[in-house]
């Protein structure tokens, strides 16, 4: 069972990974999953998707290239996401 605090840390790690990407390309699930490991999280595919969808709902993350196949989803951080990281000193 993951605690609320751990979930918040995981959200933060996901945002940090997306924040570092300032290219025109979005990051797909396998890449995000692998990069959050640098922050000490080994998330399953479902956990990662749930987190990304939650963050999308909060407006901190957006899905890009929606014209691509559903199986190949890509995400980028929003300005609100960057602001969240900066305000929380993450």
């Amino acid at each position, binding site marked *: 069972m993951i605690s609320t605090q751990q979930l918040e840390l995981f959200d933060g790690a996901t945002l*940090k*990974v997306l*924040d*570092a*990407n*300032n*290219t*025109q*390309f*979005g*990051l*797909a699930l*396998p*890449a995000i999953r*692998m*990069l959050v*490991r*640098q*922050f000490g999280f*080994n998330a*399953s595919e479902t956990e990662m998707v749930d987190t990304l969808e939650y963050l999308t709902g909060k407006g901190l993350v957006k899905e890009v*290239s929606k*014209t*691509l196949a559903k199986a*190949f989803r*890509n995400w980028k951080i929003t*300005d609100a996401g*960057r*602001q969240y*990281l*900066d*305000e929380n*000193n*993450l």
Partner: protein
Amino acid sequence: MKLKIDKDPNRKPHARAVLKNLPKTLQAEVYEHLAGSEKMMGQGLQSTTNWLKDTKNINTNNTSLSTFRKWYGLRVRFNDTGELVKEMMEKCKKQGLIKTVEQERRVAQIFFNRLTIDKQDPELWALVENVNLDIDKSDRENQRVKMEKEEHKLTLKTKKPVKKKEITADERQLRIRQILGTE
């Protein structure tokens, strides 16, 4: 003299995010001091904090520097990958492998993510993936066993007990004779 912070127009960082707002050249310098390069060894968090305060008049702390190190390292990697993808796209276009904008976008996106993954430690990643595959396999196996158990329970509930066919007295006598071999 206090350092003037150049803000990147593409983003809106918080005022407290001092290191992320530094000019690119200075960010590279800080990262080099912190993590090291071919020319010099990394000086570590405390030394870099002191160095920033003494030489650049920037007040920061070890936690912020640690966050910056991860952020900047990833950012450089993403930028390099992005540039590589653009070069690859140009080559593909010249060779006529990519014809439409949609194709270009799709292929570039795939290349970018593939290269991002490949730049990491491939052996460790393969190990993690194998472990995850084993976990998935084990979950599926558990699910199958559970389903079979439920199916078995259901079968037991719905199955009517088969009554043994009662035999008549004549049939019984015939069977006894058959066993004794007197018939």
